[in-house]
Each structure stands twice: as C-alpha cells, then as structure tokens.
C-alpha cells in the first residue's frame, strides 16, 4: 500500500512538472478538472471518499487536497493544504495537491466571494473553512471506524491516515474506510483541534514547489505550450488611453514567420512563430495613434496639481476632538510635506497569457491572481457561457497585485479569437513597465501640536491623490477611497485631536494594487512624521511611540519586541544609526528597526533590518519569515530607486536599466521574529512592506540630521560637502 501511495504521489508530482503538461486536456499544473468534463474525476466517484470540494481519498489511500489560492511565491501551494491535512490527520508528505480550476461556486474565497487572490487573504480568509473541511472528513472516517468495531465515536481517535480504537489499539487505515465513510452524513460543526494538537500548523513544512523551481520544471504562464500555438506581441499606444488610428503592416508581414497582424483593443498584435519574430514584426509596424487627453499630463503637472489641490479642504476621513482649534492655540507645532511617486510592480515574469477561443469553447492558461475574473473575461470575449470557460492557473512569476488585472488576459483572448488559433501573448519588459496599473503618487501635508511637556495634542494630515477603487469603478466617486486612507486614517497614536482629510485628484494614470497598496505610502508618511514629532519633543523615537500606544497593545508589543531584538539604544559603530517604525496592515502588526549609514557621497547603506510580525497565528513560520524578508527587499527597492515618471502621458522608464531593482550586494542582513499572539490569523504577504521605508528614513535622520520627505531617496540631498 505504501509503495502504491508513494508511486501515485510521485505521478502527481510529475504531473506538476513539464512531463505532465498534458495540454489539450486542460492540465497545466497537474490538476484534474471536473468542469471540463474530459477528465476522469467524475467517473471516479465510486471508491472515492470526497466529503467536500477540498478532499478526496481513494481506496488506495491516496489523499488529494485542492488548493484554491494561486501560488505566486507566497507558499500557498504548501501552506493551504497543510491546514486541511492537519485537521484531516494525514501524512502531509504523501498528499497530492491539485490546483483549483476557476469555479467560484466551489472554490471562491468565503470572505470576498471571488476567486481573486490579493490583500494577503490566503490564510486568514480560508483557515476556518479549510480546518472544518479537514475535521469533517476526519470525523466521518472516525465514525466509519467506530461503526466497524461497534464502539462509540468517543472511543476512537486517529493517527495519520488511520482510525484507531483507543482502548485496544486496533487500527483501520483511511483507505479501508473510504466506501463506508462516503455513505455517512457530513457533520456541519466538526470538532476542531486545539492548537497543542496541531501536527503541521505552526511547524516547519518544506515548500512543495521548491524541487520544481530548482531544475526548470515548474511551469509558469510563459512556459505554457499548446499544440498549434502561435506567439504574439502587441504594439501599444505609448500614451495611456490612446487608440489606434491606423496601421500599416506591410513591412511587418514581410518578416519570415510573421503570420498575422491584427488590431485588438490594447493595440496591434503581431502574431507569428516565435517571440523573436513577432518583436521584430513590431519594430517594422507603422501605427498612427490617437493619443487622447492624457497626452498633456506629465509628472511635473501632476505634482503642481496636487500642490494646488492641497490648499482645498478635503473629505474628512477622521475627526477626533478639534485639531484645527488645538493647532491655532499656540505652543510648539511641527509641519512637514511628504511626496511619493507612482510605482510599478515589476514581476520577474513579464505579463503573458495563452488562450484558445473557438466558437463553442474557451480555454485560458495564465499566471493570474484572479482566476475567477479571468473566467468572466473569457466569457465576455468568447461568448461562451461563463461556467464553460476553462481557466488553468499556472505558477506565477511574481504577482504583487499586478496579476489581478485583466489586460493581459484580454490580449490573449482577443488575439486568439481574431486568428482562430491558440495564442500566447508575451509582453516585453518595456511593455510591462510602461503599460501597467501603478501605485498612486500622492502629496501629503502634516501638522502637529505639542504641549509644553512635548506631549502631542493635535495631529492634522491631508492626503492628496487619486483613488484606486474609484478609478476602477469599485467605489463611488465623491466618497472616500479606502485604499487611499489605509494606514493614514487609522494611525494608532493616542492623540486627543486628530483630523485626517483626503483630496481626490486623478490625472488618468492607470492605478493598481501594489504590494501593501495605500499602506505602502501612508506608513512611510505617518511613521516619518511621528519621528519628526519625537525629535521636536526631544524624546527618543521608540519611547515617544511607546508612550502613545497605550490603546494599541498589539502595535506596542511588536514595537517593543523589534526594539529589544535590535538592542535599541545600545552603541553602534561610528556613522551608523537606527530608525524604527510600526504599522497595522492586512490584519497583522509589524515593526522594523533599520541600522543605516550614509556615505560622504550621500549613498545610503542599510546594514541590518530587524523585523517583527504579529500575524495572530503563523501557520507556516518559515514562509512568514520569507514574506518578511522579501517584503523588506521590495520596500527597499522603492526607497532607493522606485519611481515611475510621466512625460506627455508616457512612462519614461523602459527597463531595469532605468527602473532598477535592489541587488544582492545592496541587501541588508535581515533578522525576523514572529510574535504569535494567538489572535485570529492575519495577512502575511504585504505587512512586511510598509514599515521598512520609514524605519530606514528615520535612521537616516538619526545619522545625518536630514529628513527624507520624498521617495525615492535623492542621494544628492545627503551629500556632505
């Protein structure tokens, strides 16, 4: 039995890799798709115990668990099934994992009701449902075992993959109980484990995908191959929102291997036998564009517009006491203006998708964060009923919010439909940087008043910028966009008079969700300004924060642990200084202490970052650390380099040459600590980002006396004459 189980587990693993890429049967990362009707899953119902959509156990004892949360590097393929396996009490190492198809009726996130994965919602939104799914299956197997022996349910327990009679030690493997358990009713409120009973949750678990990612076997969207597939690349209007006026494909069509040149909604697609061919085709293409109204917009005009708008009263997002009155009352005041730029996600895998649209069918293979949205897009473009649209989610070469969008899916669907063949649309890096959905640039004013003991009595903050949700039509114009205010309106410090306003100003630059979204910028501005207040009060920045966090115990706990692990206050080598910051985001609490030096030429070096996260419950602690490590590098890249600038409606940056990424020789030593508070599970993918920029910039101030109020850091300002 064990041998057979191992063999099958191996087959399943192989199905995940290249050898198993049975294209045309709907298999990309090795899952059977009941929705295609072409797999054998439905026919296998006999002899399979499948109490819910997440679990299947067959007569050979092979346990299959479905993972719905797309794998973009965060470890969902490992972590999510482990939650089920823990409650089910099965040997995690032998479990086969299938990636869920798009089928929101079965696999939607129970909180958002969609199959769209962002907002650090993997563990926190699914954990209760998945635990119940596992526990229900276990209880049914236990009942089946108890029935076999004619003993009460209370007299049996489980060991991995077997029901055990407590008093006699008799055992029945799950495999032997499959048929009997399948006939039992599914318990609606199964008994869940207590944390001390967890076998996997909170323990080390090796990533299921690592072996595939060290030998080239993992299949990303870029690697999908479909018989008869053509490759396409799309020439897009350099100006946002621009349209094709006319195009001349004569020269492009002369290139050997170019097969079609077709207009699609995002531009002109050159379709051929190779990416190399079609990129040369694009260069030979002549397109006349109608550039549209955004062609007059530049970064300078946006900044000026923001600055002008910052004089207007905004919508009031928070109003405790009377901050205006308190500021006018005299005493010590502190003021600061902070600016952050547009940013692009820069996933390592450029955008791409593959589609096959036929008159009566539609199949998509894509590295998408949004399989549910992809299915809807497929239905819209193909005309095929939504439940018949097959979506195969591959591994994602980075997501960071970018891959929740539909533009690259639209590209593949429209091009396939136009040429009547399966098409993979591949973006160049230049396309990827210049035609994205950007983290908003904002302009922010702060004012604060301190009493004669240096205690803050007023906090006044006006944020000027666009709203992601409003631009996308997901929030009403004229209301406060939640993404613009997250991290600003809920700043945690206990100050009697607080006013936070938002002025909505949108210049038509496409906006998107960038890892940690509004908090990515608002933690920088809030935590930098609190630092300004601490220095103005003549107080230690850590102690100043701590004294104001009496009503925010979880903030306080992560802040204190970070300070303690970083030996806050202890001497450092000459030229080095520390900075600290704390923030709540995505239901988790995080703090960072940065240790920084600034060279005479102004170049900043972050030597060490101590990070602390309280995610409530860390299901997969090593991957929680990995997300903290990775989030810090993501944030540091923005601190050092991140800046998308607009010139006449176009993005100026072209590639990693002028939109650089942090490299290994610039990466600090990172020391991550997890504070398991035992509270409800929080987010993990994003909370590691927001506190890094302010911790670093606060350390720069401590080292140099110069306050960074605009990102990325302009090293010229830090140069010592």
């Amino acid at each position: 039995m064990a041998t057979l189980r191992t063999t099958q587990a191996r087959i399943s693993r192989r199905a995940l890799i290249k050898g198993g890429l049975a294209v045309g049967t709907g298999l990309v990362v090795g899952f059977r798709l009941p929705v295609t009707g072409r797999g054998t899953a439905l026919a296998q119902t006999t002899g399979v115990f499948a109490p819910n959509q997440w679990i299947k156990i067959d007569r050979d004892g092979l346990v299959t668990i479905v993972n719905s949360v797309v794998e973009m590097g965060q470890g969902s393929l490992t972590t999510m099934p482990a939650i089920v396996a823990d409650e089910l009490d099965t040997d995690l190492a032998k479990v086969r994992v299938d990636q869920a198809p798009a089928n929101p009726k079965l696999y939607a996130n129970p909180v958002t009701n969609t199959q769209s994965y962002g907002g650090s919602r993997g563990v926190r939104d699914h954990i209760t449902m998945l635990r119940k799914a596992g526990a229900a299956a276990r209880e049914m197997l236990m009942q089946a075992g108890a029935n076999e022996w004619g003993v009460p349910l209370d007299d049996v327990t489980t060991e991995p993959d077997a029901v055990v009679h407590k008093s006699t030690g008799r055992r029945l493997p799950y495999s032997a109980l499959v048929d009997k358990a399948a006939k039992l009713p599914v318990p609606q409120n199964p008994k869940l484990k207590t944390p001390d009973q967890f076998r996997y949750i909170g323990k080390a678990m090796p990533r299921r995908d690592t072996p595939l990612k060290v030998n080239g076997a993992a299949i990303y969207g870029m690697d999908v191959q479909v018989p008869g597939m053509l490759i396409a690349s799309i020439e897009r209007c350099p100006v946002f929102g621009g349209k094709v006026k006319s195009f001349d494909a004569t020269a492009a069509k002369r290139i050997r291997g170019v097969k079609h040149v077709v207009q699609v909604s995002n531009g002109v697609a050159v379709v051929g036998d190779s990416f190399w061919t079609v990129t040369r085709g694009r260069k030979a293409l002549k397109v006349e564009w109608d550039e549209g109204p955004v062609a007059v917009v530049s970064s300078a005009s946006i900044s000026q517009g923001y600055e002008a708008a910052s004089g207007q009263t905004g919508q009031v997002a928070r109003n405790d006491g009377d901050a205006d009155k308190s500021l006018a009352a005299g005493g010590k005041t502190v003021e600061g203006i902070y600016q952050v730029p547009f940013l692009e996600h820069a996933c390592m895998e450029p955008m791409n998708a593959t589609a096959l649209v036929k008159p009566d069918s539609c199949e998509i293979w894509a590295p998408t964060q949004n399989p549910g949205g992809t299915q809807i897009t497929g239905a819209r473009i193909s005309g095929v009923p939504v439940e018949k649209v097959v979506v195969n989610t591959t591994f994602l070469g980075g997501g960071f919010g970018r891959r929740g969008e539909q533009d690259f899916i639209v590209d593949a669907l429209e091009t396939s439909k136009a040429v009547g063949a399966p098409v993979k649309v591949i973006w160049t890096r230049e396309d990827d940087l210049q035609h994205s959905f950007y983290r908003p640039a904002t302009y922010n004013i702060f004012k604060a008043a301190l009493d004669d003991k240096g205690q803050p009595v007023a906090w006044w903050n006006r944020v000027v910028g666009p709203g992601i949700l409003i631009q996308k039509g997901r929030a009403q114009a004229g209301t406060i966009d939640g993404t613009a205010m997250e991290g600003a309106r809920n700043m945690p410090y206990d100050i009697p008079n607080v006013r936070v306003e938002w002025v909505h100003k949108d210049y038509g630059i496409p906006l998107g969700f960038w890892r940690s979204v509004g908090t990515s910028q608002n933690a920088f501005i809030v935590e930098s300004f609190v630092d300004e207040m601490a220095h103005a009060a003549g107080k230690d920045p850590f102690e100043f924060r701590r004294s104001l966090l009496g009503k925010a115990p979880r903030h306080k706990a992560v802040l204190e642990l970070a300070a303690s692990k970083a030996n806050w206050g202890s001497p450092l080598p000459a030229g080095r200084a520390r900075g600290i910051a704390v923030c709540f985001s995505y239901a988790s609490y995080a703090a960072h202490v940065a240790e920084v030096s600034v060279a005479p030429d102004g170049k900043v070096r972050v030597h060490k970052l101590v990070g602390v996260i309280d995610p409530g419950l860390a299901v997969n602690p090593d991957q929680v650390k990995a997300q903290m490590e990775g989030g810090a590098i993501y944030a540091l890249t923005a601190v050092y380099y991140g800046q998308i600038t607009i010139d006449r409606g176009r993005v100026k940056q072209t590639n990693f040459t002028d939109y650089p990424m942090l490299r290994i020789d610039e990466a600090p030593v990172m020391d991550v600590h997890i504070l398991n508070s035992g509270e409800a599970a929080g987010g993990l993918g994003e909370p590691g980002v927001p506190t890094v920029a302010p911790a670093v910039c606060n350390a720069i101030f401590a080292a140099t006396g110069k306050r960074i109020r605009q990102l990325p850091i302009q090293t010229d300002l830090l140069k010592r004459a």
Partner: protein
Amino acid sequence: MITLTVNGKRRQVDAPPDMPLLWVIREKLNLTGTKFGCGVAVCGACNVLVDGSPVRSCVTTAGAVAGKKITTIEGLSAKNDHPVQKAWIELDVPQCGYCQSGQILSAAALLAQKAAPTDADIDNAMAGNICRCGTYQRIRAGIHRAAQIKKEGA
C-alpha cells in the same frame, strides 16, 4: 540549420544564426527552464552556462555559441542533486522561483571557481541576478550551504 551542444546532446536547430539563444532554447528546444526577464542582459533570468561560464542568452546569438558546451538549468544535474540545488531545497530559497534558474547557474559557476566563496565573492558573482521576491538572504545562505555540501561530498 545550426548545431548546438545543449546539456551534452548535439541538437540540429532550424533557426537563423542571429536568433537569440534564449528563444532557440525555449521555443525550438522546448527547454523552458531558462527564463525571459528583461531582454537587455541586466536581470540574469536567462543565464545559461557556456563552457562553464554564465552567459546572458537573451543577447547571445545562437550562431555565436555553435560548437560550444551549453548547459541550461535542466542539464545542471540528472537528479536535482547538484550541491546548489540540494542547498536551495534544504533552505527553501525560491519564492515565485522565476529568477532561480539564472541564480542557480550563477551560483554553480561561482562554486566551480571557488570552493568556499566569501560574502564579497557572492556579491560579485550574484549581483547580476535580480530577484524581485527578495530571496537574497537565502541565496547567500544557500551558496554557503552548497559549498559545505560539495565539500562533504568530495
């Protein structure tokens, strides 16, 4: 027709000599472990080894490497057991994994040159490879661990 020696096998490829090696490997030889990242030789995702040295296949023409020994990630070991691969698995280095083929080949080339690389050696050898997930700390630890594994196995 070009003749290429890839992962120890001689392959006849119907491609013009000025076609970039990356796309010959990916589209003509169906070895998709070598990745497209930037197309301008600055990210390292497309690294392959040519006669043992890391080369950016996105800007190297197929014609330029005819007759040379090309190793892609698929050819680094038969059983996923090169010391770098073992160390990467042990430490769970990859996150999204897209850059890791290039990272691993750079690391393997470094270890072939230096049995016990220092942190400075690692900075030098690995600074050409971008990882957007930010796995640098584990890459560094992984190279040190791989050096140890190699030494133990020798």
